């Protein structure tokens, strides 16, 4: 299995750094960024398979960030990671659009399980698009 590229977008530096380090120790190609500019730059530089996106990023609504990510890479799967359950209509809309929604604190085994599922979904997305395009 190819090394799964994971991008963590979270303004809580210590959290994102520790989680990305733990993912690397589990053989994921994980990278952490701490602001939305870093996130958009990493979408171009790192071509992640799966994005773990914090629900509350300073400066831009998570739904907007999600849409920008999907515009850039429609096949990438996004997992929302949040310190709270989805409650507002915008949060619930995002929860419906994203691959998954997990609440902090997270269990590492649960995170890796969801990442693998999201990666499988991404491969399916790519395959389906290739079929639709007759490739």
């Amino acid at each position, binding site marked *: 299995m190819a090394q799964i590229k994971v991008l963590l977008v979270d303004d809580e530096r210590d*959290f994102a750094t520790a989680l990305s380090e733990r993912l690397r120790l589990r053989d994921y190609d994980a990278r952490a960024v701490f602001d939305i500019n870093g996130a958009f730059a990493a979408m171009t530089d790192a071509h992640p398979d799966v994005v773990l996106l914090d629900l509350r990023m300073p400066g831009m609504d998570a739904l907007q960030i999600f849409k920008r990510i999907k515009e850039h890479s429609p096949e990438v799967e996004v997992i929302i990671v949040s310190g709270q359950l989805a409650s507002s209509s915008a949060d619930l809309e995002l929860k419906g659009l994203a691959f998954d929604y997990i609440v902090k604190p997270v269990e590492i085994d649960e995170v890796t399980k969801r990442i693998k599922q999201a990666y499988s979904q991404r491969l399916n997305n790519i395959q389906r698009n290739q079929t639709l395009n007759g490739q």
Partner: protein
Amino acid sequence: MDDVFTDTHSTFIARTLSQFTHELNNHMAIIKESAGLIGDILAISEGDISSSQGQLMDIVHSIDGQVKTSTRLIGILNRFGHRMDSHCCLFNVNEALDEILSLTARLFTTKGVKIEADLDPALPRIVNASAILQLLCFTILFNMQQRLSKGSLITVRTAQLQAEGLVCIEILTIEKFMGNCETKDTYPKHVQQVIIDRLGAIVKYNEDEWEAVITLPLSRDKGV
């Protein structure tokens, strides 16, 4: 009017708690990941931690810092809860403001709005309902941030008007407001007036009707 007040106070507490528990959860998550990382490093080092000692110490310091921060935050939440024990008591206005700014900080930082406190250390303590004063300040701050753009600064300043025996709280910004309409989320002026009446305070709004100067008597019984 009691219903209006109760509803407003309930939404204030709900907003405060949801922001704050989110903040606490973030700190718990950092602690959990940091501890997990220590476990991972120990597992792969198979007993020989000499090469990882520096990294382990950094993580331990990070956990220590997070626990201290979380403990401080829990203390703030605890004091916030206890303010509702009594309808009227002697309290320090600066502490009440500092507390509500800490509790709701995430709400403002997420929006990209910075709040700067300039609190007069010589401010006398007053007799009033501190929980209701926090509610009033929150409604003013909340309404302001709704209409401010990213990067804006709000200043909260306290001062004593010695001659009059009053305490004054200014909530101001040098930024330009966007739009001029109340939204479904803003606290309407008539609701704020109910809160103001309960405090026996006077609030003067500026031309935009969003910045405010709150004047409070040293004792609510005396009025402004």
